[in-house]
């Protein structure tokens, strides 16, 4: 009984706060609402005994929303909590498309004859996940690692205003780097 009540509570909070993300007129409140939605989903994930995954979702997303709030302040150049705004386009078609997608997904969820559960959950899901990614699924983790590394490099290259090709030329053959200001070691 308690499990069902908690599930409904977290489910309603997850959807309601996700709606609030796009209903509120403040971007700061939108990021807080998204964090609440993630925490509610993390709680449901914990309810199905995926404790580690649920905890990762909550911790990662709360940090991510904090970073997002910093970005908003940085880009908007104002206090986004105090300055309401409406920055949307094509609302009518977006609503229509989303409703159609929801109807299709909901019909699939309800009408598909889902098979019965095969197997039983491990007694310790965290331990079993650790054992899996260190044995049969290690290749998956080995694939994710270079993808994450490539992401770090690509994001830094994109975000960096002046790289070494800007300073030393396309052939990296400029003897003295071209910088906006003179000075530095040996110059």
């Amino acid at each position, binding site marked *: 009984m308690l499990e069902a009540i908690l599930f409904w509570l977290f489910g309603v909070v997850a959807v309601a706060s996700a709606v609030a993300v796009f209903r509120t007129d403040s971007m700061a409140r939108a990021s807080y609402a998204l964090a609440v939605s993630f925490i509610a989903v993390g709680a*449901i994930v914990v309810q199905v005994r995926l404790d580690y995954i649920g905890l990762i979702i909550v911790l990662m997303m709360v940090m991510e929303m904090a970073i997002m709030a910093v970005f908003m302040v940085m880009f908007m150049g104002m206090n986004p909590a105090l300055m309401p705004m409406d920055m949307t386009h*094509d609302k009518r*078609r977006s609503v229509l498309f989303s409703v159609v997608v929801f109807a299709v997904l909901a019909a699939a969820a309800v009408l598909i004859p889902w098979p019965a559960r095969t197997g039983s959950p491990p007694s310790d899901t965290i331990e079993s996940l650790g054992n899996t990614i260190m044995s049969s699924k290690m290749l998956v983790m080995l694939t994710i690692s270079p993808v994450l590394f490539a992401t770090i490099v690509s994001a830094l290259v994109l975000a960096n205003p002046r790289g070494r090709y800007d300073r030393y030329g396309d052939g990296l053959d400029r003897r003295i780097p071209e910088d906006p200001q003179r000075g530095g070691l040996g110059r």
Partner: protein
Amino acid sequence: MTLQLVLLIAAALFSVGLYGTLSQQVVVMVMMGIEVMLNAVILAAAAVWWFLAPTPDGQTLLLVVIAAMTVEMAMGFAGAIVLHRSRNSDMTDSATDLAG
């Protein structure tokens, strides 16, 4: 709690995220929409894992989705910085020439 109920909540979350992705103009808000959609995918995958085949392999898929969320956020923020630097704007409407 049944599989159908969890999938219905995931469908609702996905649709809300889709609405946000399509309707928002600010790049960061578009990223928020994508995050909500990936959140729905995580919820649906967790439910399918629990109600259909609770083997350890299924948990690995959830880790992959979480990694995809991380990559999406990092590249989205980097793209937002480039857009802001080059055009002094963080709106998708000012970057329509990048489409296609």
